[in-house]
């Protein structure tokens, strides 16, 4: 399902517009698009902050999230993190900075780690997005990384944890037997203010060992 094109006929566009209107009117689904701030610009009430494109409308796209095709209306400027959190209800993906600094919003796209706050949802049409909610097995079996993070008591406050989990999953996918130092560098894009780095690394190494044990 690559590049699903929205219908061109007048009626379907109307129906989408009607749907969006209804959504806004009822408030049944809270939609949110840009989250504009940054540096000193964010303090200005009449500054140079980029406004949303006037008249921009959501378009229906299909993205593959956690193995499911999810049709979803997406604004042109909408980030994947916002789509996941506010349209698909996947709030495990956290927003820590919304500007590609902290890694709390880490997801994998085609098995590669991305900060979903800095990926436009339109760019992932037809690609496979996996969030922290998509890791457990069909009967709720935890992913080895999740289990290892529990066994090593890796999280503290837990806010960065979904991102740490995804970073570790992506690392082990590409390098199933990392050295501790390789793991440290691979995880370096994920901040943890609690300073639980050592316990996360213990978790990564444990997960690598347990995955190896399972494989053999």
């Amino acid at each position: 399902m690559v590049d699903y094109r929205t219908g061109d006929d007048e009626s379907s566009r109307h129906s989408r517009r009607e749907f969006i209107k209804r959504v806004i009117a009822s408030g049944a689904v809270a939609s949110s698009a840009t989250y504009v701030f940054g540096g000193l610009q964010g303090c200005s009430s009449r500054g140079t902050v980029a406004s949303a494109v006037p008249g921009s409308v959501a378009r229906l796209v299909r993205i593959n999230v956690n193995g499911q095709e999810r049709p979803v209306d997406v604004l042109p400027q909408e980030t994947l993190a916002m789509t996941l959190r506010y349209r698909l209800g996947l709030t495990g993906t956290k927003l820590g900075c919304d500007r590609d600094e902290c890694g709390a919003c880490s997801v994998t796209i085609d098995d590669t780690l991305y900060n979903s706050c800095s990926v436009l949802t339109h760019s992932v049409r037809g690609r496979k997005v996996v969030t922290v909610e998509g890791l457990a097995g069909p009967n709720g079996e935890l992913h080895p990384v999740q289990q290892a993070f529990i066994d090593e008591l890796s999280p503290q406050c837990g806010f960065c944890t979904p991102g740490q989990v995804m970073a570790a999953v992506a690392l082990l996918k590409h390098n199933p037997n990392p050295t501790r130092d390789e793991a440290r560098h691979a995880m370096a894009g994920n901040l943890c203010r609690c300073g639980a780095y050592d316990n996360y690394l213990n978790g990564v190494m444990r997960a690598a060992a347990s995955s190896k044990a399972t494989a053999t």
Partner: protein
Amino acid sequence: MTYKLIGKNFTPPDVLAKVTGQAKYAEDFRADGMVFCRFLPSPFPHARVKSIDASEALKMEGVVGILTADDVKNAPAPAPTILTNEPRFVGEPVLALAAVDETTVQNALEKIKIEWEPLPFTVDPLKSLQPTKHVDARLDGNIGAAGVKLDTLRWTKEDFDKAGDGKLPMGKAAQEWSYGDVDAAFANAKVVYDESFVTASNSHHSMEPRSCMAYWQNGKCFVYGSTQSQSFIVPALAGMIGIKPDELVYVAEFCGGGFGSKGGAYPVMAIPALMSKKINRPVMMRVSRFEEYAVGNARNGFVGRVKLGFAENGRLLAADLYIVQEGGAHNGFWDFRNAADLVSIMYQPEAMRWRGVPVFGNTPTRSAQRGPGYNQMAYIMEPLIDRAARELKIDRVEIRKLNGPDMNSPVGKDRSPVSSCYIKDALAKGAERFKWAERIARSGQRKGSKVTGVGVGQAYHPAGFNGFDGLVRLAPDGILHIHTGVGNLGTFSHSGTSRIAAEVLKCDWEKCVVVRGDTRKHLPWNIGQFGSNTSTTMARTNYVAAMDALQKMKEIAAKDLGGKPDDYDVDGSRVFAKRSPGRGITYAKVAQRAIELGGKYTGKELPGDINPMTKASATALAGSGLIGVAKDNLPVKGEPAAFAACFVEIELDIETGQHRVIESLNIGDCGTVIHPMGLDTQLKGATVQGFGAATLEGMIYDPQNGLPGAIGFYQAKPPSYLDLPPLMQTDWVDKPDPVSPLGTKGIGEPPLGSAATALLCAISDALGGHVFNRTPVRPDMIINAVAKRPQSHQPLQIHTA
């Protein structure tokens, strides 16, 4: 003492939700009809709003309401404000706007026309204390903090002239105390140092910005917030919203980091509730990272001066301390007082004087940050202790043991004893495990441009409160429900301390449920998770509630099976006769009997001294099992105190000024250990934060325009994985506190100070004893020190990059 649960590892009940993404933080909640609100952050460091024209914004499609300072009831000045028409720092919320989506809110905010009157501002406390040409951060005074009344204070020209170049002038103080004959003690000293110093303010940078969601339903206000505390938030937040505490439903099951900045209710969290009341829609207020750097508080900075007099044997005879606290624009924390307590307890000077003045600046409000005041003072003191050791040719561990506190040594102004202290044990244990003697033989050794440095550091923080309530319920299915109102800072101590109730009742952990995180769950009145207190305070409350339940169980057994209550004991979820263990009843049956007996057994009669919140919770639970409920009236003897000692070895590149920590060992003195893995993570996390405080983190405000320069992670620099030593170790003394019921006490804060100071001391060591008298110590400072060049900043300059 051997326990079934205490001292054993367990999987805290909230950790599964953290690794699966199921844990709901404030921004993860939704409500039907929810709209988005954003606040308008002040673009000025200090200004007056002369008029607001929001007509164009309010006409925009999708905009649903505005909240201005005129709509809210701020606490009396100089308390932090919810919204204000006189913003006093860049980013301070002026008004809030709500719309159906955030794009609309942001676009509408751009349409609001505000007529501003810029006002004078300062980001430098010394500028505010000058006799002439002073600039104040506030129009109503220039000094104040919790415990110091809002006032105006100036120093004289003579004060400034007398100080001399690069030395802190010491004019009139706002507060002071002393003990002993300070002048005489200095006269007897062999070595005297008189050092001026600067410790930078730094942000908390919690990973979760303080987003908040609120709505009103059936006469109650529902708030989903990000706080370290649960029950403790309720009265203050209800006050800000203008309702009674029992009209507030407050949910804080998870908190994405606080480190002191989310300990109590803070003003911006009232905005969604007040907006929701006005527009009658659920309101989500997401706080951006930039905004979090403005409204997320920060640690107080110090500009200070310390005079120390040592005897020939290394004993600290006299200490004279002056702290100018670089505070924010509003009443903040009292770090400047705590600094004195650190000196008094850690080195036990024979005579001491402290003076302090908390000065306002046009910068964010200062709240407690992990070891407020104590740790900044340790950053300065420990390298100076090393300097004395070096000059007097005393081992650095030994000089700390020589001066250090003993079991009941006095602390602070009142010279009141601590409840226990084993810092010397921690130093001894660390020196042995870290092979201190071997390592210091390598200190100063150079390989290429890399020099080895070895450091030891220590710190202190009070570790507990008393007088709060405990509440447990034994249900008729035999499950023990431990209700805790303490909050979830991420330390897992909400459950760790709940295990004390299970321990007292010898209840298997599998048969216990920790009930927390939501006022609807009938929680007792507890203090929050701050001040390293939980492992003392909540140990006491859970102990008294469990003891109350135990007594009731024994009474029920005696009623049903004969004899006296004291003839009975508990184990294996049974109450049984001590003399004939076969005779007894199960916990399930005891709970059922409690319901049948009614009265105090099932919460229908309650102790008179418990808090109304606890009373309401216990009343709600009445009739559903055996209720154990009590106020902590246990004896109080001495101030609970936590200590930590840390050892580090570093490699310092004297060409680049970069350092690398090779190994660290942080050792806690925290009484009986409740949860070894949890303690280990606290010690390691504090180590990481300590390294950040010592060498990375600092708030920067441009003195010319009052604009913040450290408003992103990459600028404010919390440590990352790459700052981690390859080998990070922890340990603990594990000696019980004699006052705490099971010997437990807190630990959260001192290991940050010990790690920071150990690193600072190691850097000094690698540089042959150079002391910077400033944090953070950055690479350019090191390069200047190596080259014996003057530093690029003035000695008393703050906000240096």
